[in-house]
């Protein structure tokens, strides 16, 4: 079923065009991004139920202008045909006043050229099997309640079995003198969180599904409850890992975390502008084993960060970041590409209409290879199969990596022993990890349940994943 464009944005489209024209009398480049995102988050656990608007819900606009030297932006969320002149004046006054006061300091403005846009008019409306509005919140909660009750019956160790479901309908409109773009799409996700306790030990894990989908994600979620509970219960007997360097196999969501933290953040090209990315020195050079090919892009694969255009009106692409071990290029927002003289890749994303656009990841993954998981396990004398990503942190300048992982399954003499260590922190030097990749499985899985920050803020929706990979890692 086709997803419908926001009637709110459609209604105000002409107002936005008038505002662009008004501001164009003062500024040589003007664009407006309009956003209308509706979403609901449903939660159920032993002690209660919640149905609230999603954290991604928003409705508003952001104007970008070339102020004669570089770019200024203004975010607002009140508009009407009668208030357009007032809004235009407010934008001019606010942006000019803020810059005027700074002239008394030793700080000046970096210069940027004027964005040269090709004329383009396009629309993208995604399709889902079941539109969220066709299923009532009552039906969704009933389905989640059944799932929770089934989960709770799986083990006496369960303290709780939480079920989360979120549906987000995003509509965006981008208007400038040459561009007229519209898009509307839906992503959904469901997550199971069994929490188990034995004596004073408490453990939990996540099992999730996601995609550019509607209510149909429930079907995928409902078959995962036994696996989720079993995984959590096994964690109760997990041991502490002996710190050291091991042969490791990374499950697809761990591979995705490595791809994301290691060479996703590391090739965000706004970092090139700031001289914060070590990867600049390695463009065209080997940074990983020949088995490694890494993609990022809104069109690279269909997942939660697939779209027609980014938050600066650049069409999404599929960027091959690493091709058979060679670092090819980065991912870029529009202004960084202006500064660097490169082509933007459609990776300019904002947390919301209230925030700045940065170079951000979309759907990031390592492509599959030719190996089989069982052969990878058989090839390891002593090591771990790492599963479950909890969080990660980038270090684009110095190429460190931090991956917080749920568990490691011990491998001895080519076999899984059943012994589990948890939690596991994997650290290391990015090229060491990537150059050590010696086997890559055929199957590729993408996980879009998480989100990505830049530093410690600017949260955006991303997906990542890849194949099972065999490499070496320092675990603690």
């Amino acid at each position, binding site marked *: 079923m086709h997803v419908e464009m926001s009637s709110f944005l459609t209604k105000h489209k002409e107002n936005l065009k008038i505002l662009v024209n008004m501001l164009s009398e003062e500024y040589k480049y003007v664009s407006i991004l309009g956003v209308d995102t509706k979403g609901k988050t449903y939660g159920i656990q032993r002690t209660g139920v919640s149905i609230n608007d999603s954290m991604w819900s928003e409705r508003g606009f952001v104007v970008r202008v070339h102020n004669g030297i570089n770019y200024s932006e203004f975010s607002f*969320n009140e508009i009407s045909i009668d208030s357009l002149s007032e809004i235009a004046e407010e934008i001019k006054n606010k942006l000019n006043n803020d810059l005027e006061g700074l002239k008394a300091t030793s700080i000046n403005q970096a210069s940027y050229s004027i964005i040269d846009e090709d004329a383009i008019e396009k629309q993208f409306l995604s399709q889902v099997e079941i539109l969220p509005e066709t299923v009532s*919140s009552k039906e969704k909660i009933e389905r989640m309640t059944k799932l929770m009750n089934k989960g709770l019956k799986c083990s006496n160790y369960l303290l709780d079995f939480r079920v989360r479901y979120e549906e987000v309908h995003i509509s965006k409109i981008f208007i400038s003198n040459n561009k007229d773009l519209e898009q509307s799409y839906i992503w959904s996700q469901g997550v199971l969180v069994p929490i188990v306790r034995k004596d004073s030990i408490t453990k939990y894990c996540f099992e999730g599904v996601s995609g550019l989908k509607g209510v149909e994600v429930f079907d995928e979620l409902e078959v995962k409850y036994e696996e989720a509970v079993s995984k959590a219960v096994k964690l109760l007997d997990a041991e502490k890992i002996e710190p050291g360097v091991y042969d490791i196999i990374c499950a697809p969501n761990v591979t995705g975390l490595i791809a994301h933290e290691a060479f996703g953040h590391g090739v965000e090209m706004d970092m090139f502008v700031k001289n914060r990315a070590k990867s600049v020195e390695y463009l065209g050079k080997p940074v990983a084993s020949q088995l490694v090919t890494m993609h990022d892009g809104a069109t690279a694969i269909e997942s939660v960060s697939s779209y027609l255009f980014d938050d600066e009106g650049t069409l999404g692409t599929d960027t091959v970041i690493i091709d058979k071990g060679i670092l090819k290029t980065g991912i870029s927002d529009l202004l960084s590409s202006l500064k660097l003289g490169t082509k933007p890749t459609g990776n300019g994303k904002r947390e919301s209409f209230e925030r700045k656009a940065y170079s951000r990841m979309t759907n990031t993954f390592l492509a599959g290879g030719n190996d089989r998981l069982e052969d990878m396990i058989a090839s390891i004398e002593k090591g771990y199969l790492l599963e479950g990503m909890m969080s990660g942190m980038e270090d684009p300048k110095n190429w460190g990596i931090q991956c917080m992982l749920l568990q490691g399954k011990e491998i001895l003499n080519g076999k899984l022993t059943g012994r589990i260590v948890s939690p596991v922190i994997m650290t290391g030097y990015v090229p060491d990890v990537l150059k050590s990749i010696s086997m890559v499985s055929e199957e590729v899985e993408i996980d879009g349940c998480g989100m990505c920050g830049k530093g410690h803020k600017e949260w955006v929706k991303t997906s990542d994943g890849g194949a099972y990979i065999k490499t070496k890692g320092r675990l603690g």
Partner: protein
Amino acid sequence: MTNKLLKILSSIKDIDGWKINEEKVESSELFFVKKQIDMNRGKRVHKYQVTVYKNFEEDGNKYTGSSTINISPNTDEDEVMENINEASFAASFVKNQAYPLVKPCDTVQPNMESKFFQASIAQWLPKLTEAIFKADNKENGCVNSAELFLNKKNTRIMNSEGLDVSYDSYSGQLEFITNWTEEGEEIELFKDIKFSDYNPDMIAGEVENMLNISKEKAMAVPTPSLKNQTVILTGSPLKKFFSYYFTHSNAQAIYEKISTAKLNENIQGEDIKSDLVTITLDPFLKNSSISSPYDNDGFPLQKVAIFEDGILKNYWGDQRFSSYLDIKPTGRIDNFIVECGSKSIDELKNEPYLELIEFSDFQMNPLTGDFAGEIRLGRYYDGNKVIPVTGGSISGNIKEAQKNMYLSKEMQQDNNFVGPKSIQLFNIDVAGN
């Protein structure tokens, strides 16, 4: 829009209560690359959040269902009505144990204090900019880039019980990166600070400190592998470390059995010979960006003691979860103060130690008590000399670590956290080279 909302809410007979959270935010943002402005941004937004409540009974049990929706000021009346009706329908099967809404009271709460009230946002930008770059005068290091945000906010909270409170506040945020080069490659470190008052010395001091730390990192060698190591955590990791106690004294965590902490029991265990934690929540903590006179429900906030010498004295919680536990609500207070300890930092360093100052992202899992982080900068003292180290990681569990830990006499403030500057932990494993 407020009147429109009030009119619509009063016209819907199907609901038993409502709450409106209104926010008007004006802000300016500056993005610097080196000592140049790369972009400036402004913002003026007006937001409404509406919660509707429905009371109902099933099988003899009383429930209060609720659903919260966001309303944009541009939303027309038909759409507002449709959204509120949908929320009302949803609330009718949100089976949460019944609880009362916050009632209006005569308590007069103090206004939020900040020098930022004395001038416009535009007038503060050059002063803050000067503070950021005051210490950026080193030969081998610099501020690589910085992002400055200054927000002026008006908050109003109303509910169907007649509550109607409002207050003005400021919040600021500065994120900056420092570089340093010694003989090897250039290194960088990251810092994020939040504030609510104009304090140029604090900003300049943070930048100076990060430049000094960056110099150390540029000289650092790989962290060695160490077993059963005495570790001193210093600076920013401590806010996350002590957040474990904040979480475990929360009424919601108790109600959901996530926390098993009991009143008048020592959370650190019995017969603890080392330092014990004493923690207070203070809604008016100076220079915290999240200080406020009321919580999100409009409950008037006051300072409250949580732990005294490890003993849990009070749970803290909002109206809903406090009523479930049948305790006096404190409201939601996110500023926490941990009393300093018995030893000076010099005393903590009397024996060999690994002092950890900067992590990639120090993590404390409040549910399991596990903590871990990749080391970006540490100081390793083997009994002879102190050397800066980088790389590798530590991991541990607070339930074990708290049985033997010492808190420094010296204190620090990190936005909503005031506490010891350093703590000493024992028998920590370090994954290194």
